[in-house]
């Protein structure tokens, strides 16, 4: 029990980051190369913390407001982004993240500027995070089994085919954006109420890079992918602790190695392998029966 308690902060980080990774996963699944989640999480976190600190709103209502703000900003973004594709979307959303970051530093009376916000009540514990992550995973899995999930896959794989099947690319991607914004905003708010303090650079370029790596390393076609990717990358610096300042070196080398040998990510490659084994076994058994 002692052992587990010692790792509880790490587990909390894992849960928070899993939430962020899932928010990123859903847009990628719908074929939108958006990295706006860092900005959306920042908005959610600051709005939630600000409402409670400055106006005395109940933390749970603030969390709701943060989530809604994520949705609103995501929808606002999705409209212009529908004109762009691929890397251009990534760079436009990167610009959005930078704008949020610098406005955040500039608007000192509201956001505390570079110092950030302090003394946020800590109302979110491991259990709340577990419930939030569980609910998000459930939501993502449920979406996967519906018409909407299939529309996401169709749009990602081939837009022309999706359109010919009567799927509106713009609307499907807006829905993905809205869900992603909700998840990003919610987990931003949870982070605010979990860590006592917020500072603007927390949601900067390195945050964006970390979340994207979780999803790509784990695999971006199944819901488990981002969870596994986050687990590996959050645990790694901890496991490599004896290496002290070289541990980021190991982290970097792992990213390079995994992407080189498992370009689809850990989980997707594994699932493909299992599926192929299964098919091969089935083919062998039918062949055996025929002869």
């Amino acid at each position: 029990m002692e052992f587990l308690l010692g790792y509880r902060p790490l587990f909390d980080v894992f849960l928070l980051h899993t939430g962020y990774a899932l928010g990123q996963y859903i847009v990628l699944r719908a074929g939108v190369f958006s990295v706006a989640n860092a900005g959306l999480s920042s908005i959610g976190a600051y709005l939630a913390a600000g409402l409670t600190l400055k106006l005395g709103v109940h933390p749970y209502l603030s969390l709701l407001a943060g989530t809604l703000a994520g949705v609103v900003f995501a929808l606002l973004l999705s409209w212009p982004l529908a004109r762009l594709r691929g890397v251009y979307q990534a760079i436009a959303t990167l610009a959005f993240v930078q704008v949020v970051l610098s406005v955040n530093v500039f608007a000192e009376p509201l956001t505390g500027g570079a110092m950030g916000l302090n003394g946020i009540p800590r109302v979110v514990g491991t259990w709340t995070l577990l419930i939030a992550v569980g609910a998000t995973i459930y939501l993502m899995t449920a979406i996967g089994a519906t018409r909407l999930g299939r529309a996401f896959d169709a749009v990602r794989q081939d837009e022309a085919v999706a359109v010919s099947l009567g799927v509106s690319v713009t609307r499907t991607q807006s829905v993905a954006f809205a869900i992603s914004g909700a998840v990003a905003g919610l987990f931003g708010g949870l982070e605010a109420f979990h860590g006592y303090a917020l500072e603007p650079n927390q949601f900067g370029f390195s945050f964006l890079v970390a979340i994207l790596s979780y999803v790509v390393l784990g695999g971006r076609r199944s819901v488990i992918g981002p969870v596994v990717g986050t687990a590996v990358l959050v645990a790694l610096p901890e496991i490599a602790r004896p290496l002290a300042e070289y541990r980021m070196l190991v982290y970097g080398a792992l990213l390079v190695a995994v992407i080189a040998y498992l370009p689809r990510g850990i989980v997707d490659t594994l699932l493909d392998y299992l599926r192929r084994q299964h098919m091969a076994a089935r083919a062998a058994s039918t062949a055996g029966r025929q002869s």
Partner: protein
Amino acid sequence: MIVQQLLNGLVVGGVYALFALGFTLVFGIHQILNLAHGAVFMTGAFIALYTVLAGWPLWLGFILAIAGSGLLSVLIEVVAFRKLRQSGEAEFGAIVSSIGVNLIIVTVAQKVSNTLVLRFPFDTFPIVIYEFFGLRVSALQLFMAACAVALVLLLTLYLYRTQFGRQVRAVAGNERAAKLLGINPDLVYFQTFFLSGALAGAAGVLVGLAFNSIHFMMGEPWLLRGFVVIILGGLGSIPGAMLAGLLFGMIQTMTIAYFPSGLTDAIIFSLLFLLLLIRPHGLLGRPEAGAMRGR
């Protein structure tokens, strides 16, 4: 006053152009967004600095920096991208892979420099100020402008006037077709990555000299602004990157001079966002450069 600011902006813009050219070259030819480009830039500044600190002259440091960062960039291609290329998942993969490489280089640089902000020794570059028609130009600024122009000219000559350049452009057009015509793509990758790294390294030395502050994180803001420049010019467009670099240098100097300093990034990145909405392919980009292509 405003002309002086424009002039200063133009000089900084030349360096932005150098940085962005290498970035856009690799993207335009191989469709790889190399996020380790900022780290290569930083490495260039480090090599020149340590050469000078070891007592060697600056020109040698400059040459070593160009060669060293070019080779580093080639190494990145071999280690991080070569295997990935064959898998057909390069667009996402290359981004994460280069994030990994970036982490490795930055960690090594942090270790080497003990997390310190380093400076070139005083008087590494003679401080001379010339005055033309009431405009003040330092010798360093002239040197920066001359380097930028010379390197850009060399690159253009290489790409458009030599056999190698023709091969590079053939691979950019269609890698499969180029292979069928007997062009070895690995050799082309070697060249583009070397050129890209060398340009970044040169930019790193110039920035190190101009701002006299060299540290292991210096690449990140340049990488972020590099995005703005290459998008502004149109991804993969070489004249676009040059023009956009100059324009960007001037816009940045103007916003720093005439707006609250905290808002510089907000203004620059908002402009980028707006530009993408009006001209999704940048100023000189063409639709087939990839903006509207699906994954």
